């Protein structure tokens, strides 16, 4: 396994596409925490999060040969697949819920879900602290639509309906918020 540590993500994907299980384990070591954490965070259910983590990496194992680097990095692809699967679960659960209950959801409950709880945890996940800091710098309206879409799984139309805002306004807030995050993340990534 140590021989894989120096390999880039794309090389690992190539090896996985050739059926190398060690490469799959190495890739798992790199990103399983992020995959599992996102699923656990969005679903509030560890058991389903474990299941989704397994599904995501098994999908990677089976579909590694279809990876297209033009469309993103392996990590971006992996997290996109993860998010898609979580969203599927979230939306299926939402369909089962009463729509009025959904409409009455207190948006303020979104706030604590991404807060850093302890000093130790903050030290352990500096990247996370930076992401949270970046989110906090966004205008409240942009932050809300991004959180609702990415972490709660609402579509733009649903957000417009819940917030009682025109769909165009929601789209604009999403686009502007993402552009700002992109700029901030690039600055953070620059040494």
């Amino acid at each position, binding site marked *: 396994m140590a021989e894989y540590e120096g390999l880039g993500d794309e090389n690992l994907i190539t090896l996985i596409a050739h059926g190398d299980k060690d490469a799959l*384990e190495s890739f*798992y070591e790199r990103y399983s925490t992020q995959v599992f954490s996102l699923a656990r965070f969005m679903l509030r259910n560890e058991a389903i999060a474990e299941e989704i*983590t*397994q599904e995501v990496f098994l999908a990677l194992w089976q579909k590694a040969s279809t990876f297209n680097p033009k469309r*993103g990095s392996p990590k971006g692809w992996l997290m996109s697949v993860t998010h898609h699967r979580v969203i599927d679960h979230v939306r299926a659960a939402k369909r089962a819920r009463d729509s009025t209950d959904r409409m009455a959801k207190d948006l303020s409950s979104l706030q604590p879900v991404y807060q850093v709880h302890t000093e130790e945890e903050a030290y352990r996940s500096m990247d996370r602290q930076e*992401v949270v800091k970046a989110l906090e710098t966004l205008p409240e309206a942009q932050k809300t639509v991004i959180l609702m*879409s990415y972490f709660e799984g609402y579509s733009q139309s649903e957000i417009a309906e819940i917030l009682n805002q025109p769909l165009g306004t929601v789209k604009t807030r999403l686009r502007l918020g993402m552009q700002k995050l992109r700029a901030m993340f690039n600055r953070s990534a620059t040494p």
Partner: protein
Amino acid sequence: MMDCRHVEDIIPAYALDALEPEEGRRVEEHFEGCDWCSGLVRTHLEVAATLSLAAEQKPPPKRVLAGIVKRAVPVQAEPAAPPPQPYAPQRRRPATILAAFLYAAAPIALLLLGGVLAFTLRTSGQMGDLQQTNDVLTRQVSDLQQDNDALSGELSQLMDENSRMAAQVSKLNDDSSMVSEMSEKVNRLSEENTVVTAEVTELVSGNKTLSQQMDALTVSGRELLEFLRMQRAITYMLTLPNTMAMNLEAQPGAEAQGSLMLNFDREWGIFVATGLPLLPATHQYDIWMSAGDREYYVGALAIDETGWGVAYLAPDHAMAEYQWIGVTVEFKTASPRPSRSGEPVLWGSLALVAPLYP
């Protein structure tokens, strides 16, 4: 078909999975033929991936990896996608490019040179990665070749083992046939043995009966010989010239009679009794003789079913020393009794003996 301007507007929502499913599919169709928009979505997917770090980070339990490794069965590898290439916007703005070319030909040349240099360095880095990947794959091929050689050896051994086992199975089949034949023989012998055992049991029973009959005949023969011996002794005594004789007395009313013949020269005598009652199996008749003040047991008197009995007398002392003779009824014992317990049923004084031939 969506145009690039519209797609650019909704790419952030696509990266966040916030589009409606149908709209998302149409955007993906657009990506297939548009490198420019594919490059844009790549950037936004990176933003979304980074955004996921806002979730509290916690590693999954170890069983998750175990489950993946267990379920990750080998798949037929499809041709891998080519390595990533730098993407370029598909949209062209001819006027802008021409102006840039006219006003900045020299800088562009320098930039191209730098670009070539950078591309060379990047390609060199990728070559390094590919070389590393190739090394890993080469080692894996070598490992697989070794595994294959080892498996071939094992297969050869297994085939040899299989041949040996087949031969053993064939031999066992033959043995099984022999065992079946032996089993049939054993069954036949068992049936014959049952018949023979019944016959032997019958013979043993017959033999027992014969033995009992022979025992009875032996007893009868012994008794007959004793009777003949007594008859011969009586006859002999009757022939002797100095034989003495006397009759014994019986209890009043009894039918019993007794006679005694003595020969003082030869110190022996014969006692004869008739009409004695039959006794139960627990009792017998005993003969007693007295000398001085003592009585001596002389012997038992056996009688037949008619009450007739003969006894040969050869006492320890000289005949002349005895004064009295009698017969009593006693319990049967294995050893000579020291004294009589009952009164005599026959008795007589030896003083009464008289010559048989005066």
